[in-house]
């Protein structure tokens, strides 16, 4: 279970230091996560990252659910075992790439239907599926699927995006409660 504690608040600015205690590592904040899109920080080995002092990395749910698939990663013991990284991992929801990388998207209150940028195959990502997929990846921190408006945007469009995201967050929480790994 992830716990966050603020350990120091700056007097002159809003900066603060904290400790983010995750299953695999206690991350000191503020901190920066190198991006491991395909379960690798491009060109760097986990030993390199550890030597640098990296405490947490981010992996991309969209890319990993399409290749090699979350079920394969799950059978290999989850992301930590799959890529041999002992410290913290955050996975995103997959939403951003499903919006930005794919064609033929269909977005409803239920979720996002999209074509894979790899082979055009049809996939569906809902708040519930985003939680289930991340549960298989076994990160330290999972993100819930969000919906965002484009920039610039109109007030009404932004409002719909926020309302849909709040609704999706509630649905994500319902699935997470029943998850033995994430709960």
């Amino acid at each position, binding site marked *: 279970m992830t716990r966050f504690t*603020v350990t120091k608040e700056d007097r002159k600015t809003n*900066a*603060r230091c*904290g400790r983010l205690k995750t299953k695999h590592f206690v991350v000191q*904040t*503020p*901190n920066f996560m190198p991006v491991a899109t395909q379960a690798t920080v491009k*060109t760097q080995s986990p030993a390199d*990252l550890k030597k*640098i002092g990296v405490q947490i990395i981010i992996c991309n749910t969209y890319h990993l659910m399409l290749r090699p698939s979350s079920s394969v990663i799950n059978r290999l013991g989850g992301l930590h075992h799959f890529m041999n990284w002992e410290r913290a991992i955050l996975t995103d929801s997959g939403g951003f790439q499903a919006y930005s990388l794919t064609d033929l998207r269909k977005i409803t209150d239920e979720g996002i239907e999209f074509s894979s940028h790899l082979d055009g195959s049809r996939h569906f990502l809902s708040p519930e599926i985003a939680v289930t997929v991340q549960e298989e990846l076994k990160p330290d921190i999972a993100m819930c699927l969000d919906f965002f408006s484009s920039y610039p945007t109109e007030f009404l469009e932004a409002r719909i995006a926020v309302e849909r995201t709040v609704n999706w967050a509630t649905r994500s929480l319902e699935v997470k409660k029943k998850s033995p790994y994430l709960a």
Partner: protein
Amino acid sequence: MIGEPPSLTAEMVDEVNEVIPPNKPRYLMGCGYPEDIVEAVGRGVDLFDCVLPTRNGRTGMAFTSHGKIIIKGSRYAADKAPLDKKCACYTCRNFSRAYLRHLFNAGEALAGRLVSYHNIYFYTKLMSDIRKHISSGTFATFSKKSKQKFDFRNP
């Protein structure tokens, strides 16, 4: 964050941080350049991620204490100095700019690897410096100096 001007991002960070609980971690996805990170930390952000250190590393752009270096430039052809004299990373302790430039020009895989290593080290060190300055109460001064010094965003 993505596609917005930095001033608008700052404004939105302030808006959001006023309404979200202070005891929860705040994550600004996709941020950013070193100057953007320092700015956002001062507005209460705890976590960041960005492809810049690795993506730019693979194309030969290094983040250094004296600004950015495009290592392929002919001015580095015989430069014995490391990427960053002030940096203690493996790349800077062991290789010259001339060698790194040669690796890029020869299309060698080690080129992107060594500069990415340096860039991740630069970002990791920046975050550790930020934490030290918050802990010792000197963040405001550090932030002001850093923002004057860092100019990575501009081409």
